């Protein structure tokens, strides 16, 4: 073996080491990112469980930061730059924005209470959150709907111009909230839950 041939394995080894060096660094970086995401990221979960014969279930887990960054990339129909244009913010003569503004500026309390044979409805503001509770009593459809929206999220949604909802700002505000169940719907056939936490899997 000549002196040049003797160096070939060394050169091959160095080349392989050079190639693998970024791999090691990348793996380390990924591990760090993964642990950071486990601790820092907020996940929005949607779970739909149907109790019918097919037993349909839907589970969706979305990192809020991903949604926040991806939404502005969607340019379709009424959704542009992370904002939804809503032409009917003035619904049937009711200015939704003004109502939200009024609710935001008012003290905690129960704003709407409807009790009838068909349904009980209440809209409450408590501890910086707006709570909507609907209990439909009509048989055979017997349903219970609870919606909890942090007021900061409502504010962020309405931070855009008059006829649009700023979804990106809403998601950003939502990410700042603690673990919270946003929507809960229970009826005879389905259970629907939308909630926010730091886990990347559903329970």
């Amino acid at each position, binding site marked *: *073996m*000549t002196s040049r*041939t003797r160096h*070939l*394995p060394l050169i*091959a080894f160095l*080349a*392989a080491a050079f*190639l*693998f060096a970024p*791999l090691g660094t990348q793996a380390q970086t*990924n591990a760090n*990112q*993964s642990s950071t*995401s486990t601790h820092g*990221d907020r996940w929005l979960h949607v779970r739909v469980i149907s109790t019918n014969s*097919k*037993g*349909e*279930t*839907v*589970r*969706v*887990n*979305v*990192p809020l*930061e*991903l949604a926040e*960054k*991806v939404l502005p*990339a*969607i*340019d379709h129909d009424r959704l542009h730059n992370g904002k939804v244009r809503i032409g009917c913010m003035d619904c049937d003569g009711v200015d939704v924005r003004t109502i939200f503004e009024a609710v935001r500026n008012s003290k905690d309390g129960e704003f709407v209470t409807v009790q009838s044979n068909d349904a009980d409805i209440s809209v409450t503001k408590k501890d910086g959150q707006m709570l909507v509770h609907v209990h439909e009593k009509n048989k055979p459809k017997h349903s219970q709907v609870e919606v909890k929206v942090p007021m900061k999220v409502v504010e962020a949604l309405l931070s855009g111009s008059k006829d649009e909802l700023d979804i990106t700002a809403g998601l950003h505000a939502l990410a700042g909230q603690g673990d919270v169940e946003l929507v809960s719907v229970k009826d005879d056939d389905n259970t629907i839950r939308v909630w926010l936490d730091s886990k*990347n*899997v*559903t329970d």
Partner: protein
Amino acid sequence: MVLLAKIALGFGATVALAGAYTFREGILRVDVDETRGNGSHVHVWVPAAIVPMAMHFVPRLKMAEAGECAGKFMPLVHAVAKELQRYPEADLVEVHDGQQNIRIRTHNGSLLIDAEEPGQTVHVVCPLATIDDVSRELAAFAPAS
């Protein structure tokens, strides 16, 4: 003899390095199995590393056509792929509907799509970095809006 040894060593080292590089970049895999009737079976395994390279050999006219059709969605695909790389292990969507199952998740930095129904299964594995690269290439061919 020495020359042969040199050639063999060079060849072996090249294969080893190419294998290592391919392994690092991951595999793009599409498996479609139809078990009903004369169902077809499609199994495509492609080293993800060659996909962006192969795109440079696609005629510009064909790329322009693809860019015209899909280009407008590429910023979205690029944004999703780029962001999903931050979540290398995540269950994103899971749907069970009787005998139909759909699962979308990330694993080892790849996007996995599994769809199963009676008589047909589809499994797709694609490294997110490859989706990112391809979306960028296609976006470059999108007509200016």
